[in-house]
């Protein structure tokens, strides 16, 4: 019952969308630990994955307090269709660093803009999100630097990053899908959608132009149906099953 209350609450739906993106991104990105191209980036990418998971946790803890749920229950025990993440986060990178970098860059810059807005809410969640916003800003700055570094590096690094951008941009608009049709009425959050999208595009284009890269972003219409509404791609399901395997095998496992 409490899970149902949470899932139908507009603010919770927005927060779950933000947290689920980071939970899945952090899980997927941890595949790279020990394998990133250079040591410093191995540390940085692993640290960012760790941050993403902890940022999701900070939000699940808040929602758990509001709806009398254990944060792990929110993270791992929902039905697949109750996950609100955009499926961009689980697009396979096949251990191609350019895809990993580009994906994290697109998601982090979006995430930061969401936290900017959540941080204006009075009270506990606003305070939590202000903290997360500041940490997310470090991610965005770091990822922007790498887009510029690789874009202006060699012909090969520029080509490969451009290919990654071309591949991911069509999926990226889905970040802006409203998580629930009911949110159409919730002016305070969802309907900043156009404004957030424009801010996100302006920032991305500014970075791409410094990096000698190109990208055209489009906002999908509101009727688009995907991860935010619980209709998930196969790659999400695969990642979700891997992430929750231990939990499903031994629900009381602790470490």
């Amino acid at each position, binding site marked *: 019952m409490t899970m149902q209350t949470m899932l139908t609450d507009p603010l919770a739906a927005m927060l779950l969308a933000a947290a689920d993106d980071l939970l899945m991104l952090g899980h997927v990105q941890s595949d790279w630990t020990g394998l990133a191209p250079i040591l410093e980036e191995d540390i940085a990418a692993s640290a960012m994955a760790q941050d993403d998971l902890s940022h999701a946790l900070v939000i699940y803890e808040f929602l758990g307090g509001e709806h009398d749920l254990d944060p792990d229950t929110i993270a791992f025990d929902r039905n697949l269709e109750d996950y609100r993440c955009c499926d961009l986060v689980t697009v396979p990178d096949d251990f191609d660093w350019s895809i990993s970098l580009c994906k994290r860059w697109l998601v982090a810059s979006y995430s930061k803009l969401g936290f900017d807005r959540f941080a204006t809410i009075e009270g506990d969640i606003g305070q939590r999100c202000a903290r997360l916003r500041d940490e997310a800003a470090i991610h965005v700055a*770091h990822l922007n630097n790498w887009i510029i570094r690789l874009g202006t590096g060699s012909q090969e690094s520029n080509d490969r990053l451009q290919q990654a951008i071309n591949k991911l941009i069509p999926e990226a608009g889905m970040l802006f899908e409203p998580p629930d049709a009911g949110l159409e009425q919730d002016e305070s959050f969802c309907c900043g959608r156009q404004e957030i999208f424009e801010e996100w595009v302006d920032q991305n284009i500014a970075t791409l132009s410094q990096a000698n890269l190109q990208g055209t972003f489009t906002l999908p219409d509101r009727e688009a149906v995907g991860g935010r509404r619980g209709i998930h791609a196969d790659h999400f399901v695969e990642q979700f099953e891997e992430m929750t395997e231990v939990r499903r095998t031994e629900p009381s496992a602790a470490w």
Partner: protein
Amino acid sequence: MVSIQTIEAALEQVPDPELPISIVELGMVKTVSLEGKSARVHLLPTYTGCPALPVIEKDVVTKISAIEGVDECIVEWAYEPAWTPDRITPVGRDTLRAHGVTSMPCASEAKVTLTTSAITCPYCGSSQTRLDSPFGPTRCRSIHFCEACRNQFEHMKART
């Protein structure tokens, strides 16, 4: 009858597991309160993803619960005010510097970019330093390089 001062003094004995200073010197303690024999400590996380946070929580509970006259100790994490390196005490700053870790007030931090930084090298005092990576060995530290003495050093990073 146990006093707040006793509890505060005990907290000074709780080390950060990843730094050579205590959690009090690091500025993580927000408030300490006492209700009868029940102590409550509000702590500020340096960074939310820091894996040392549960260790610190456990250490605080163990330390405070061991004080005569204290029956229980409750630790709560607070997000307001946000922890910043400004909260590190002068003694804490000196100890960190002696270990090759710098810290400075946030106001100066805006100047830090990938190629230039206003951070002074803890070894030679040069300001010819650059940021190598904002993600260091722990969540709260960034990695910097001194062009003058060619040493790498760490810095308690501020939020941007």
